C-alpha cells in the first residue's frame, strides 16, 4: 500500500471526527484525546494541557471553554514530511468545554 504523503491540510470533517475522540484526564490540568487521525487513520493520542514551563508570562488557568488547535501526532512515515514536523499534516480546531459533573 502506498504511504500517504505529508500535506498540511484541514477539512471541516476533521474536527467532526476528532470531536468523537476518547477523552481522559490522566492528571490534574491535563487531557488526553485518543482516536484515529481523521486523515491518515493512524491511532493518535493528543495531549491537551493548561500550560507549560516556558518562562514566558504568568500562568492563568484555562477557561471553561477553549479552542484547541490540533495536529495529527502519528509516528507513521509520511513522505515529504519536513524535519521537525510530526504526523501526516492534518490539522483542525476543536472546542473543549469543561463543566462540573
Amino acid at each position, binding site marked *: 500500500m502506498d504511504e500517504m504523503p505529508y500535506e498540511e491540510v484541514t477539512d471541516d470533517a476533521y474536527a467532526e471526527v476528532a470531536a468523537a475522540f476518547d477523552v481522559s484526564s490522566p492528571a490534574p490540568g491535563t487531557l488526553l484525546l485518543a482516536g484515529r487521525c481523521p486523515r491518515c487513520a493512524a491511532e493518535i493520542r493528543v495531549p491537551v494541557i493548561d500550560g507549560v*514551563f516556558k518562562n514566558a508570562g504568568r500562568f492563568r488557568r484555562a477557561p471553561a471553554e477553549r479552542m484547541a488547535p490540533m495536529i495529527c501526532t502519528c509516528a507513521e512515515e509520511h513522505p515529504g514530511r519536513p524535519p521537525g514536523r510530526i504526523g501526516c499534516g492534518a490539522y483542525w480546531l476543536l472546542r473543549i468545554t469543561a463543566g462540573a459533573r
Partner: protein
Amino acid sequence: MTVRLSPGPAAGPHDARAALEQFDAIDGELERVRAAAAAWRTGMAGLLAALVGFGLLKGRTDIGQLAAPWPAVTGGILLATAVTGGFAAIWLLRAAHGRPERTRFDRAVPGRIADHVAAGLALHDLRRGIAATLGCATLLIAAVATTWYGPAKGGPKMRVQQLGSVLCGTVTGLDQGRLTLKTDAGLVTVDLTRALTVKPVDNCP
C-alpha cells in the same frame, strides 16, 4: 469534571503552527525545568557558601560567651537554619534530578503527559527549594548577628595594665581611685593611679 468536545471553526495554517509549538513545548518542558533547577541549585549553594564564609570572617564564634538566654536563642536559630537548609537541599536536588520513586503500571500516565506531570512536580520542588534556601540564608544571618552582637556573659569587663602585670575581670566597685575587679583568681583591687592602660573588653583572655 466532565469534558465535552465539539468541532471548532475552520482552522488556518497558523492553527497548525500553534498546535506544533504546543506539542514541542510539552516535549521539551521536563528538560527545561531540570536545567533551570540545576542552575538554581548551583546559585543557591553559592549564596549559602558565601554567607557561611562571611560569617567566619570576624566576630565572636563561641555562643557559650553570650549572656543568657542568647546561647539558647542562637542555638535554636542555628537548628532552624540546619533544618531549613536540609529541606532546601532535598527540594532543589529533587527538582534538578527527579524523585527516586517508582510508579505502578496501572497508575502510570502516558509518556508526554507523564513528562508534563514530572515537570510540574519539579517546578513545585524548585519553588519550595528557592523559598527554603532564602529562609535558610535569613536564619543564618540572624544566627551570625546574635552571635556577634548579642550581650556577653557576665557583662562588660575591664582590662588593666600595670607595671609587670595585666588584670582582667568584671568591675564590681570603684572607690577613691581604687577599682575592684572580679577575676578568675578572685577579687582584686587595683590602684588606678598606677595603671598604665585601662581598656573595656568583651572577654578576658
